[in-house]
């Protein structure tokens, strides 16, 4: 930590961890959370000792045998003000400190790599941008911010990595995000902490933090051949999205190139930032996210695309920086020929995974 010697800090944490009464510190935020924790323990101990001393000393000093006569005292505004203001001040410090941490944990840096997580009863499905799938485990590189974009297929879950001191509810019907930067290679617990039904306690897994080299090796060793964006591109074509969202001047739908992160004007005149969640909701509830200047003709894809499919689409749109490839796909699919140029290594006619079998 910044304000005490790092050597002492390491010593303290190692000592506590050895007794198995303290979780490992394995993320950039963890020492900061722990420092705050020690502050809170500090004020608690002080408060408890003061109350204990008051009760103890008075009990001895004013027990009936020693003090048979009670002296009636009304109260003291000064004293009461003191023990109103001092706790309030300490609590306000906690409030500000806690709020600063909260904003750090829940506002990912812009350069974070994105990993998608789908929770369902009772497993975690992790989708890496490179197309790697994992069940109940998450491989991440150390020293690199990782943002998780998470959604639940059924009930509330909660994604918790105690060693990183982060946790976030995984909610049906909307994306939630959390980020962390692992600092120490190792295998850590991954828990579902929101009660989610019978096998709640088996909805656990592991987070594997790896050195960048190991991570690269793992990434290339477990690729499925198709990246998330490529799968998204196939879906995009298979669902016919490209017939409107193709960026041509007379297209029926808005161009999607570079849309994520940009300001979008809605039909009701307000502006909103197009986020992952906005894109997902627009696919499912287009009427609620009508973009200004376009006719409300987009059909809903509710029930036609699985959450994994939606993630592929979102990842595809996130990476879409020009409409060139959409035009290509249109032309290619008209001639029925495949393209092997990266990133679209698959053909648009093959059935993309992610569509819900009807």
């Amino acid at each position, binding site marked *: 930590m910044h304000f005490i010697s790092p050597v002492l800090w390491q010593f303290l944490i190692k000592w506590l961890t050895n007794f198995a009464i303290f979780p490992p510190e394995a993320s950039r935020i963890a020492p900061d959370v722990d420092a705050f924790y020690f502050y809170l323990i500090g004020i608690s101990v002080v408060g408890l000792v003061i109350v204990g001393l008051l009760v103890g000393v008075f009990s001895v000093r004013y027990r009936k045998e020693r003090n048979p006569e*009670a002296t009636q005292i009304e*109260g003291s505004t000064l004293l009461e003000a003191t023990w109103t203001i001092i706790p309030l001040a300490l609590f306000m410090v906690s*409030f500000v400190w806690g*709020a600063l*941490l*909260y904003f750090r944990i829940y506002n990912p840096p812009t350069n974070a790599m994105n990993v998608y997580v789908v929770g369902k009863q009772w497993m975690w499905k992790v989708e890496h941008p490179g197309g790697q799938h994992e069940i109940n485990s998450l491989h991440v590189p150390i020293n690199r911010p990782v943002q998780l974009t998470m959604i639940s297929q059924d009930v509330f879950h909660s994604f918790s990595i105690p060693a990183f001191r982060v*946790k976030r509810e995984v909610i049906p019907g909307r994306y939630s995000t959390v980020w962390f930067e692992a600092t120490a290679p190792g295998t850590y617990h991954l828990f579902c902490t929101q009660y989610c039904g019978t096998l709640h306690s*088996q909805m656990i897994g592991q987070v594997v933090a790896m050195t960048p080299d190991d991570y690269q090796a793992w990434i290339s060793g477990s690729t499925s051949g198709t990246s998330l964006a490529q799968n998204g591109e196939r879906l995009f074509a298979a669902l016919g999205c490209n017939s409107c969202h193709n960026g041509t001047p007379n297209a029926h739908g808005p161009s999607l190139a570079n849309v994520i992160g940009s300001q979008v004007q809605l039909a009701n005149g307000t502006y909103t930032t197009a986020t992952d969640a906005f894109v997902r909701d627009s696919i499912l509830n287009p009427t609620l996210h009508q973009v200004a200047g376009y006719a409300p003709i987009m059909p809903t894809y509710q029930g036609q695309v699985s959450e994994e499919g939606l993630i592929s689409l979102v990842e595809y749109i996130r990476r879409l920086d020009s409409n060139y490839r959409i035009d290509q796909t249109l032309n290619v699919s008209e001639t029925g020929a495949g393209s092997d140029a990266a990133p679209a290594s698959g053909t648009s006619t093959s059935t993309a995974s992610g569509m819900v079998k009807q």
Partner: protein
Amino acid sequence: MSTIVSLPDQSTATLPKVSYLNKEYGLKSWLLTGDHKRIAILYLISITFFFFIGGAMAGLIRLELLTPASDLMAADTYNKVFTMHGIIMVFLFLVPSVPATIGNFLIPIMVGAKDLAFPKINLLSWYLYIAGGILLMTALISGGVDTGWTFTTPLSTHYLNTHVITAGLAVFVAGFSSIFTGLNFIVTIHRMRAPGMTWFRLPLFVWSHYAASILMVLGTPVLAITLVLVILERTIGIGVFDPAKGGDPLLFQHLFWFYSHPAVYIMILPGMGVISEVISTFSRKRVFGYTAVAFSSVAIAVFGFFVWAHHMFIMGVSNYSALVFSLLTMLVAVPSAIKIFNWAATLYKGSITFETPMLYAFGFMGLFTIGGLTGVFLGSLGMDIHLTETYFIVAHFHFVMVGGMLMAYLSGVHFWWPKMTGRMYPEGLSKLAAVTTFIGFILTFFPQFILGYLGMPRRYAAYPPEFQVLNVFSTAGASVLGVGYLLPLLYLTWSLKYGAIAGANPWQATGLEWQIQSPPLTENFVETPIVTHEAYDYEWLAHKTEHDEVETVG
């Protein structure tokens, strides 16, 4: 000003010939009674029954967690057990515990009235409580329910095939029991005070019940309508909370916690009232800063309504509403701190004795301080992320609810036991029980704070093996705690027949309830009392005792 209070010689005390207990006989005279004291006894018996059922569930939970694997029971059984433990303890024990038993017995007497304003509604509220209890037992016997006591949608509405509707109805019905109790208290305190009993002469017990009643009356209906919507969603499939139909499950969370956060103040405030009475009585001193303690109860009730979203900090409330709710959570912690310090200051220059109620009250102060301060951990946004939904939060609310409220409840039961039954409890055994409870409690729940920071999630039937040591401590503590709770059940029952006869005012306390016979008459007072002194006026009591005014009943 100084006062010497000497306890009366109890060897000469006799039981009064006529009291509320022997005015009428037979089951019917109890089941159809309008007497607030008899209804309090009915509540006391039924609440004790449900407490031990809930306690047995807790024992099963701790046994299962003795080993990391889910070996004693399967995961779904475990889920049913902790759900039933939660529902019983929250809705059938903690919410009615002090108000419906001790409060019901004492509030009319403390304000100088013959009964609560609406005796029939008071009886109705007991029947509703029993109906809720029976419904819940039906759910339990016919196969159980595994939603957790929070009934979280969409889990409870779409993903479980257990008896959610029966359990939901049970809570709905028990909720109305609580509404009627609160309503009765508020009307009684407003309209039934004896001549001279001004607001600032009321004992702090009455103030804290007044604050809790406001929460019961305003909060519980929101829970009721939320449960109605859950039940409708489960039975016919309306779509208010169902994301598939356009509803939002977070709305359920908001509505549920809008009641269930104030509910923790419903649970703790009456306990704080007990502590004020007990500490004052056994230090023979007016409560330090009466007004501050009285208003801090009201402040807790008011702020308590505006902190509910601190249960949802990690659920995607916006950053700014998280800020506001965290700030308000910090503010609501302050009145509790004021109370603790004022109680401690009450001891200063007192003349302190250490009877059992006082020991329980000291236990309360220690455990509630820990519970309250760990609440500050959870109210701090960044810390809440790591700690919520782990054993830390389990430990936190058990320190407040069990360490706080249950200690206060036992303190109150011991303190007013002579008034309720006319007989004393055995002092030595009960001190042993108080100490056992305290030690057992610390041993059970303190390790859970550490487990929580290690990250052990709550509601897990099985857990990683490295958490076992602390769980073994916790289970060991639970068995000590169990003994601590069984002891009072045994010796209090024993004392009903064999306890020493108490006399009217065994503690030389100042409350109106101690100026009448024990057990009291059906209509409490022979004549309506005229109040001329403040609460906790030991001068007045000493003066009165000196002059041997026998007409203190009047």
